[in-house]
């Protein structure tokens, strides 16, 4: 039976049939781990048609063969970028922050020596929302923060994003998921409807420019206990994913954890991490 034919986008003669949608959906799932439900049909079809037209192909079949067999994988990556719309804001995927304070840090303290600093790496940190969210969560929701030192390192390849992160100036949309009382406690109003993060919190994140795929740049990044690497690997080709994951592994202390984005899976890339399912999140652990 045809599914939701009336809602499928048509641009001129171009449209995606049910079988073509299934073929693409299965392929995309196998390559990325992202599965589109039928309810996403309009979203997927629209972007597929956009790329079919953008690459000058006559229809899905020609385009699919072109994309599927292109040795460089550039067109596949274009599709990934189109199909995975990302934005950053404070407390994004908060369930992982909850997992950090309720489960992960407790396990980390088990293998740390007394007085040893807990080290957290956030990347790509973009304009700073993620590492500052980690800092806020630790201060407000982790009872042991007064007894344990925590160092937060945040990195990105984009120096302009890093500069903005250091400035600590955030839009209304960026802070819209923060509880009002946290906004009032750690931010002050700034011109243009922006919110400025307090100096004390800005000073608690160490920003660095790092290219995760450059072995020489990442060699010094060691002895971390938690790594937030959300929504980055999905944008890498398979070879780069594998190299990046090796870097994460070497950057972690034995027993340390990696947190990926909700649509990402380490299991497709490597088997060296143990999958751990906690109440709030699934995370990946380097064996002790």
């Amino acid at each position, binding site marked *: 039976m045809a599914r939701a034919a009336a809602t499928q986008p048509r641009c001129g003669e171009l449209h995606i049939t049910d079988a073509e949608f299934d073929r693409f959906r299965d392929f995309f799932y196998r390559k990325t781990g992202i599965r589109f439900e039928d309810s996403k049909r309009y979203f997927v079809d629209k972007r597929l048609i956009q790329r079919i037209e953008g690459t000058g192909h006559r229809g899905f079949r020609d385009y699919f063969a072109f994309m599927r067999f292109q040795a460089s994988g550039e067109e596949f990556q274009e599709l990934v970028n189109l199909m995975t719309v990302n934005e950053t804001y404070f407390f994004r995927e908060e369930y992982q922050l909850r997992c950090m304070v309720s489960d992960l840090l407790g396990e980390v303290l088990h293998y740390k020596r007394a007085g040893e600093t807990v080290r957290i790496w956030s990347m790509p940190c973009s304009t700073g929302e993620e590492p500052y969210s980690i800092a806020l969560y630790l201060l407000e929701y982790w009872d042991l923060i007064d007894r344990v030192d925590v160092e937060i390192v945040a990195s990105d390849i984009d120096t302009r994003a890093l500069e903005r992160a250091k400035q600590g100036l955030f839009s209304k949309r960026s802070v819209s998921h923060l509880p009002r009382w946290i906004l009032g406690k750690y931010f002050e109003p700034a011109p243009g409807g922006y919110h400025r993060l307090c100096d004390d919190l800005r000073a608690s994140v160490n920003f660095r420019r790092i290219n995760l795929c450059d072995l020489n740049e990442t060699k010094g990044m060691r002895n971390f206990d938690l790594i937030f690497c959300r929504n980055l690997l999905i944008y890498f080709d398979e070879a780069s994913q594998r190299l990046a994951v*090796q870097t994460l592994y070497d950057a972690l202390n034995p027993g340390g954890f990696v947190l990926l984005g909700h649509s990402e899976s380490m299991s497709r890339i490597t088997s060296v991490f143990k999958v751990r399912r906690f109440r709030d999140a699934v995370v990946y652990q380097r064996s002790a």
Partner: protein
Amino acid sequence: MGLVKADGKPAATSKPSPRKYTRDLTGLLAELNDQQPKARRWAARDLVAYGEEAVGALCERLRTEPEPSVREALFDALLAIGGDAVVEGLIPLLRGEDAGLRNGAVEVLGQLPEAVGPRMEVLLADPNPDVRLFGLDILRDLPHPEAPRWLMGVLEQDPHVNVVTVALDRLAEVGTPEMTPAVRAVKDRFPDEPFVAFAVDTALDRILGGE
């Protein structure tokens, strides 16, 4: 206690440990056989910089490396280097008994289309059906425009039913309507295998869907 202030200093990194080996090809090749898995991992990762010169040693180490995390670093180093020497070094692993090595080799070979392409027909004509199946596993992800033609060759000529049904499964993704007579003909080649009829119908549904 609390959040450590950055104070504009670079993030603290691990203290450098004294090197047992020189950081050149000779030193890294020696380090590749160190007793410590951590040292072997780093040797594998650093050897990427030496390209083809390091391929033989990396492949050799794979055959005896017991530690999974080192094996992954070895495979990833070979993938990063790529090229003919890597493919020549990995194909023999497909004939081995170690499933982990075979799977690792398949994954890497599936991402080296230019070097694997010229060897695919030989691989798919191997006398050992298991090797032909591994060839089809490589084709599953290999971004190579000849893949449909190779699959058609398997469909038309391979005598082994398991190999042919796997080829049907692969064609369901990349097949085109012009291939349907050859797909249908598979039923006649294996009339006593009910699963083949099912696999053919499934592939045809996918290939012809929407026609």
